[in-house]
């Protein structure tokens, strides 16, 4: 092994320059092709409504039921609109389960729900059960098994296995070329760790793909994108802190495990609902432990140091928070549910305030806003929340001069390039030096700037890989978010929709704060870029969030987080 490294270093003079000259254009080209291939199916799948059952009214009208969770009510945006004065605006929720059974739940309606002449709060519907809502009688007629199978065939198929293999192959070529450059220019002592770092990512992506093929899942787009971003993160580490490549690889492996674990728990909604309680305890537990045993680094007490490990538990709390925020429709329609969520959020914010972690607090707050809006749909509530934050923010700034300084230099970094603006002016100078195609992997100056592999990571990317690559990486997150929103329209449960929208929103907020903060469009807050910034906790969090996005993918045979049946059937348990 060392001989190979030695001989590669020997080639430096001869081939490094050629390779860099080629890769400057080849890298963005491969990346663009890869992302195009991955995102095209995600952003173009058909979204026609699927009919799962019919609601037969006594006058002979048949209302189609197009979701797994359906709000019945007078409100014109209800899933099943019954415009009759005795029906409440949101009267009840009709829920379909994995096994094809249906349940009706009363959502604190004034008139209540009667099944077979008996007032019920929640009732597992049997065929022939007569439901009475506001005096209107109806029966539920689920579609037959045959129809279900037909529906599954009609549903947009996820990409084929071949496409997935092609994409991963493309990504592997990218990784090999990148690794080759670093083998020629990385410091001798770090070569092995950098080499293993890139190989490790490649191995993981192939193993995961193999696992998917074994369980007959063919969609690998979201994962490919995540692996691509991880590769870029590894490229940053290889140039800035090459000795930490192995650490990052372990973090990616742990992230992948988290991804699979959360995906598995989301697979069964009942299991997911139970996991929520665990997540709630864990989420707040992580924060409390940090408060009690944490160490203060760079002004924020958000690090937990156990032997050689240093963790940022608040990152893991983010994933838990998404779990807690997500909720099924039948619970969602009840007020009590929202109030307990608000109480929980206040507790989390309290912990973060005590930790003095401004960036994370901001992310949690944005996540809270997204969840609150998804749940309530009330702009007024959000207004109140934002106002409250405004006041809290002013008070916080008064107390923390550290944060105030950051705001003071915002949009004024060039007036103090050797003081408050040092980090950002150097970053912008480096970004400008990189141009559209960069100076080549490992060839930049950013490695000398503090936090070049975490908070200022976009500077390193742009300097060495070019502005085009940065645009592509931001596009990754933007496109994932669009995919999530598109999926929401055909979402089966609000649990998945809220979860995926919140997860995508957290990623977006992180990118907004990280990228725009670095380039002085926003104040610098010290937040990580998902998948790219160096840091184990952040990596695990990113993969955890990705699991929620993956779970929202309802295309046929797409997600391991959605159950599959024999013969291509969509639902029935095996």
């Amino acid at each position: 092994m060392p001989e190979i490294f030695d001989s590669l270093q020997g080639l430096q003079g001869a081939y490094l320059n050629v390779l860099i000259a080629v890769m400057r254009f080849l890298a963005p080209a491969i990346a663009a092709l890869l992302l195009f291939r991955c995102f095209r199916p995600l952003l173009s799948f058909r979204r026609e409504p699927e009919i799962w059952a019919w609601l037969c009214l006594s006058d002979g009208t048949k209302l189609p039921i197009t979701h797994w969770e359906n709000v019945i009510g007078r409100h014109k945006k209800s899933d099943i609109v019954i415009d009759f004065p005795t029906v409440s605006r949101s009267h009840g929720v009709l829920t379909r389960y994995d096994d094809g059974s249906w349940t009706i739940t009363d959502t604190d309606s004034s008139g209540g729900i009667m099944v077979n002449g008996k007032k019920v709060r929640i009732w597992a519907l049997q065929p022939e059960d007569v439901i009475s809502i506001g005096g209107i009688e109806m029966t539920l007629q689920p579609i037959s098994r045959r129809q279900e199978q037909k529906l599954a065939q009609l549903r947009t198929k996820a990409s084929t296995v071949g496409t997935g293999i092609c994409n991963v192959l493309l990504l592997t070529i990218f990784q090999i070329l990148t690794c080759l450059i670093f083998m020629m220019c990385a410091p001798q002592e770090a070569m092995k760790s950098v080499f293993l770092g890139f190989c490790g990512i490649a191995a993981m992506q192939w193993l995961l793909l193999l696992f998917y093929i074994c369980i007959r899942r063919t969609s690998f787009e979201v994962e490919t994108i995540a692996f691509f971003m991880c590769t870029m993160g590894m490229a940053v580490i290889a140039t800035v802190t090459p000795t930490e490549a192995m650490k990052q690889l372990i973090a990616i492996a742990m992230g992948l495990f988290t991804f699979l674990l959360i995906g598995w728990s989301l697979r069964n909604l009942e299991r997911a609902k139970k996991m929520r309680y665990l997540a709630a305890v864990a989420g707040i537990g992580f924060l409390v432990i940090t408060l009690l045993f944490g160490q203060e680094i760079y002004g924020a007490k958000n690090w937990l140091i156990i032997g050689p490990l240093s963790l940022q538990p608040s990152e893991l709390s983010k994933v838990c928070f998404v779990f807690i925020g997500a909720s099924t429709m039948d619970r969602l329609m009840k007020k009590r549910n929202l109030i307990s969520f608000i109480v929980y959020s206040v507790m989390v914010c309290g912990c973060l305030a005590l930790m003095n972690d401004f960036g994370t607090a901001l992310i949690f707050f944005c996540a809270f806003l997204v969840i609150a809006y998804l749940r309530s749909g009330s702009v007024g509530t959000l207004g109140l929340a934002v106002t409250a934050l405004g006041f809290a923010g002013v008070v916080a700034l008064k107390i923390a001069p550290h944060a105030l300084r950051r705001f003071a230099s915002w949009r004024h970094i060039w007036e103090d390039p050797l003081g408050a603006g040092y980090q950002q002016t150097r970053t912008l100078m480096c970004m400008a030096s990189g141009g559209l195609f960069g100076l080549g992997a490992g060839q930049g100056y950013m490695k000398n700037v503090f936090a070049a592999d975490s908070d200022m990571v976009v500077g390193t990317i742009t300097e060495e890989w070019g502005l085009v690559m940065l645009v592509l990486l931001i596009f990754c997150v933007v496109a994932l978010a669009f995919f999530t929103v598109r999926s929401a329209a055909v979402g089966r449960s609000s649990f998945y929709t809220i979860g995926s929208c919140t997860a995508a929103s957290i990623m977006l907020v992180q990118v907004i704060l990280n990228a725009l903060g670095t380039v002085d469009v926003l104040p610098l807050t010290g937040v990580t870029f998902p998948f790219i910034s160096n840091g184990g906790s952040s990596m695990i969090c990113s993969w955890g969030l990705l699991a929620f996005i993956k779970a929202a993918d309802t295309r046929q045979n797409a997600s391991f987080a959605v159950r599959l049946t024999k013969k291509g059937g969509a639902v029935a348990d095996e």
Partner: protein
Amino acid sequence: MNRIAGRAAITVLLTLLLIAGFSFFVAEYVTKANDWVLFTGSPHIYNGTNIGTGTVIDREGVMLLDMEGERTYGESAAVRKSTLHWLGDRYGYISAPALSHYSAQLAGYDIVNGVYSYGQNTGVAKLSISAQVQTTALEALDGRKGTVAVYNYETGEILCAVTSPTYDPDNVPDIENDQSGAYDGVYVNRFTQSVFIPGSIFKIVTLAAALETVDDIQQQSFYCDGVYTIGADKITCEAAHGNQDLQQAFRNSCNTAFAQVALQVGAEKMEKYVEQFGVTKSVSFDGITTAEGNYEAVDAADANIAWSGIGQYNDQINPCAFLTFLGAIAKEGKGVEPHIVSQIFVGLSETYEADTVSGKRIMSAATAETVAEFMRSNVEYKYGDDNFPGLTVCAKTGTGEVGGDNKPNAMLAGFVTDPEYPLAFVVFVENGGYGASVCLPIASRVLEACKNVI
């Protein structure tokens, strides 16, 4: 579910926020990246306050400076000393505006490729000066303070521009504690940053102004008995020159005659022509702006107007501006602007090439021809052509009285008319003594050296 799906728009809102913010950045990038990359402190370009990328060579490819890291200067101490003021020192006492001016080209910066260049080639700036001529000129100055400069009046290339005192940047003397005065003004590039009392070389200006304004000036005869009295003031000459025409008076550098010439032109016209000739204006090239000279005659007493016409009173000129003026005379009244940076290469691609920039016409071709003819007769009949073997030189010496017990400034200004050697030159030696005897040997050596490199 319909409602929830609709509310997913909040994620779209965040997406739009990100796209808007990033677009704003991209717009800033497109418009400001150029400033960012060239901002002092930009790590790819600067090394402290001095530009820190690229190498500098002379017109023949002699390495003068590698700006990377700790800065490596040329090999010989003589070259280092004679070129220091164009290259800048290590500590920021002497700046190098001509190099900083081309930092973008030296770094090979453009918005598409940033500062990328194949194989991390750094820029190479080729200066128009010759290390060989620079060292010859500095040697000829022999420790005296002053400046010697030569430029090609056809192309604008500065072949030589040394300033003294100077020092070896690789062996910095204890300037701060020096009591001898040997390093007074050592950080100043006298060619571009200083002004001198011109003395008799200013008679070239007065002569040209007279030729442009006084029709019969060449038909007049000027009598000199050694002293010319204006009111209570006396303008003295070195000797009684007797009766002389304008050309003879110019050759004799007769103060009496030129006092009369200046008075005939008149204060207002003198000022107007000084302005028109650009003698006191700053010259700008390669990011350098030279010191402004001074001339005032309007509102002055007649005696002072007379003194101003012979380069005394409040007259001050910058050597570079005067050199440009000489170039214009040599080139029939319309000269070219000087430059010192000829070419910049990054790798194989040329990122900068100097153009020959024509100046405005400052005098009629006829006037320029007559002035040249007069200056030629100075050399032919007075200074001696044997000073400049193989060259046809037009020149004027000067001795600028500086007052007190100090020796006068010695000066020489002129140009070569041979088509193969289109060179204009100035020699300024502070407190050098008598112009002709001090400056002629210097000019002689420097022009001889120039012949080999042009």
